[in-house]
């Protein structure tokens, strides 16, 4: 196990009328890609600003490489931020932007020249030194912002939704690029986002944040497969959600009267979540441990590989079911009745 580069201990931030961050505890390993995922207003930016030193914590402690950051101003912390709007200096060219921090450290000219050139090469911007930042494309500006922070060789690089302003295509591209860049450079990244796909694709570990608290810290895969709270199940990935009104042994009943069997249930859940892709359409008879039922197709929502069926069950509950785009289900159409199964494991109760 690698060293803990950042440790957050019981960190809280209270403002006059509300609590933005409430007793958050976590650590980040050196060289990791850690994401904090949450809806807007959940306190993730406040948390980031506390780590960078722009906001003072109300309670708790932040340790970077084992050292408490209490009372240390932003300019002296070994962390750098890539801002949401990038905050490139418009009156400077690319080279001056990247060299800004090094010049503040009063390094000698030759070293600055070398480090900036090297950094620009790594982010694929060699030859752009003299360009004005206002003349660059969105992706290039992004890379200048990252280079400007990374050239400082921070222990941790904080990224505050830096892909938010990009268009979809470029965002998809930058996601992969960022992950590769992080692997290559090896700096610890802490990435803040409300976009679950960004968090899942890039991170080694993801913390899901809601109302100032961490709901779950896990690997992207675990987060998706085994959400520990109803919020995580609902926020990460798509889910069919049902209110549960009663339980009779292993049989639970949804609000509209759909009875489902869930094995090994020892509490009365309030909510049931099922992922669209957890449904098996037309399951083979020999499959065991699955719950079978009939649905009627209401409409097919075609979206390439993401195509889904909107279907209803007898009770009236509506379901979204992923429809694999292969020859087997080619002929399905509106109004058809289909047999559907769900593995008991995929019924998530909270």
């Amino acid at each position, binding site marked *: 196990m690698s060293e803990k580069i950042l440790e957050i201990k019981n960190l809280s931030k209270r403002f006059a009328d509300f609590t933005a961050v409430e007793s958050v505890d976590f650590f980040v390993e050196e060289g990791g890609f850690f994401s904090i995922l949450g809806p807007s207003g959940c306190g993730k930016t406040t948390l980031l600003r506390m780590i960078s030193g722009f906001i003072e914590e109300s309670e708790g402690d932040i340790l970077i490489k084992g050292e408490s950051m209490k009372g240390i101003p932003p300019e002296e912390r070994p962390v750098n931020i890539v801002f949401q709007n990038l*905050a490139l200096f418009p009156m400077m060219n690319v080279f001056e932007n990247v060299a800004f921090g090094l010049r503040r450290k009063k390094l000698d000219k030759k070293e600055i020249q070398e480090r900036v050139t090297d950094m620009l090469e790594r982010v694929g911007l060699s030859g752009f030194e003299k360009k004005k930042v206002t003349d660059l494309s969105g992706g290039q500006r992004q890379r200048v912002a990252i280079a400007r922070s990374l050239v400082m060789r921070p222990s941790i690089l904080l990224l505050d939704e830096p892909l938010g302003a990009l268009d979809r295509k470029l965002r998809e591209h930058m996601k992969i690029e960022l992950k590769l860049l992080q692997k290559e450079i090896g700096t610890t990244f802490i990435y803040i986002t409300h976009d679950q796909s960004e968090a899942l694709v890039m991170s080694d570990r993801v913390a899901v944040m809601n109302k100032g608290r961490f709901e779950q810290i896990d690997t992207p895969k675990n987060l998706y497969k085994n959400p520990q709270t109803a919020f995580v199940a609902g926020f990460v990935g798509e889910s069919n959600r049902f209110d549960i009104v009663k339980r009779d042994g292993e049989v639970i009943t949804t609000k509209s009267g759909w009875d489902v069997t869930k094995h090994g249930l020892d509490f009365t859940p309030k909510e049931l979540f099922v992922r669209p892709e957890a449904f098996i359409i037309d399951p083979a008879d020999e499959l065991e441990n699955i719950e079978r039922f009939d649905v009627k197709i209401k409409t097919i929502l075609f979206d390439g590989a993401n195509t889904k069926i909107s279907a209803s069950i007898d009770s009236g509950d509506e379901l979204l079911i992923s429809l694999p785009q292969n020859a087997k289900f080619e002929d399905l159409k509106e109004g058809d009745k289909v047999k559907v199964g769900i593995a008991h494991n995929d019924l998530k109760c909270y």
Partner: protein
Amino acid sequence: MEKKQFNITFYLLVIPVLLWLVLLIVLPHIDLLISSFKADNDMGEKVFSFANYMAFFEDSIYWRTFINTALYAIGVTILAFVVTFPIAFYLTKVVSNKYASFLTLLLLIPLWVGELVTIYGWMIILGDHGIINEFLKYIGLIEKPIPLLYTDLSMTIGLLYMSMLFMIVPIMSTLESLDDSLIEAASDLGASKWDIFTKIIIPYSMPGITSGSIIVFMLVIGDYVAPNILGGKSSLWFTEQIYNEFLSTFNWNEGAAFGFLLLFLSSAIVWIALRLSGQKLERVGQ
């Protein structure tokens, strides 16, 4: 390129402007320009001559006055920047929006009452029996009033006071567009407060500073009221020379020549200043 269709509204809007420009600005200037090249010959007839312009360079009182005026104007411009920049920064970045507009309004008030009235106001404050002297006497610091009025000090105060606003407004408008995250980013990259000020805030607001400086410099160098009323006997202002030529010695040709010299020389100073500071006039208008 598509041909633009000019309709009647366009002409209705543009004709008053053109009339104004041509009749009240262009024509009188041409007339003055012609007049500035005329001088009496030995027979007392008006003939074409450079004599009016030569007089400026030959008679040291004239060009000395001009240099004195120009240096003063540069000084007041720099002072105006030093005094107003913190105010502009405070109003745009520190104080909340609610109060900022009210405080900006307060800044405008001196402009509403006109230059002459504000200058008389300063006379009341600075005079021998003015507020400052009376107060100093009252607390026993002085026995005889210190001469504040009719000095270079009072003139500088007057010039500064009437031109300050023209420095503050353009600076405020550039500072308003300065994103706070630029300041945070600089601080994150290890910049001290001083670095942030000199490397981020000042360069960013340079277009505003430049346009403010041009306006203030031109206003001050061409001002007549403040130097005339608040200035002492020794502080001769170039506009006063022009005034004298027109209204004391009735030498309109000489006065016209001085007027054009003022225009060209002050424009030249602005041009040189722009070149030296690496600013472009096109960017200033933004």
